[in-house]
């Protein structure tokens, strides 16, 4: 007669649960790398027809080379942008203006629900001869 010897196969549950938790932590942390955060832009097509709006609904702002903000030639602060019934904005930006000031201004305008923004370089060169129009889109809103 042949005797079969069965080994007692014990599954180490404690270490298995350790590894399961480790894998969960890994997936949770790696999920955060699937997203980036920032300001979403929707650029217009090159051949898109110009958007015509009444002048009273357009806010005109300018950023100089040092990032100082002016409205109709008068200096204003980000919190001091007084909105009447404007629903769009034109920002004239000096080509030397640090990018952070433009981002801060766009964020402030978005907080005021202004999502149609045109950005124009303040000094026109042959490269910047035509006007630019960027429509910035917020979630749930169409431009």
């Amino acid at each position, binding site marked *: 007669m042949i005797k079969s010897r069965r080994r007692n196969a014990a599954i180490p549950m404690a*270490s298995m649960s350790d590894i399961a938790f*480790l894998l969960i932590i*890994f997936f949770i942390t790696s999920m955060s790398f699937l997203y980036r*955060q920032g300001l979403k832009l929707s*650029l217009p097509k090159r051949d898109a027809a110009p958007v015509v709006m009444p002048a009273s609904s357009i806010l005109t702002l300018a950023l100089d080379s040092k990032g100082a903000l002016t409205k109709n030639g008068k200096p204003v602060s980000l919190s001091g942008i007084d909105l009447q019934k404007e629903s769009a904005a034109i920002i004239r930006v000096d080509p030397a203006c*640090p990018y*952070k000031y433009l981002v801060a201004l766009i964020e402030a305008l978005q907080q005021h629900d202004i999502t149609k923004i045109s950005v124009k370089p303040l000094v026109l060169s042959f490269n910047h001869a035509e006007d630019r129009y960027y429509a910035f889109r917020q979630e749930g809103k169409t431009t």
Partner: protein
Amino acid sequence: MISLRRRRKIDIPVVAMADIAFLLLIFLMVTSMSSPAKSKQLQLPLVQRAEKVKMKKSQDIFIAKDGSYYYDNKQASLDLLEERFSGLSEASRNAIVFIHGDEDTPYRFIDGVLRMLQDCRIQRCVFVTKKRDNGNPPRESL
């Protein structure tokens, strides 16, 4: 005299070693996935509220303070970027470009990229920012 030598049985805890090996593996994987902007020493602009955008069918452009462009971990000219991006919108309508600009980059370099994207018929892009927290002081007033 008879010396009693007691040999201790050496027992290597394989289970615990496997645990530690996995921990190290995960640690190395997570640390190697650091932010690409950090690796290029870019200071992203700070914002109070930023949207989360999924990195699906996305491309990244990095713009340094001195105006140099980086794509695919290499320095690139605008012409080269245009060449790379020209077929992107045709390949996928949902193509999205993440623009990682240093906060002190002069605007003309950002404008150059936006114009290039328009020429390539790419409509969706994102100014990548960093969320301001308590550790980051508020931006100096404009």
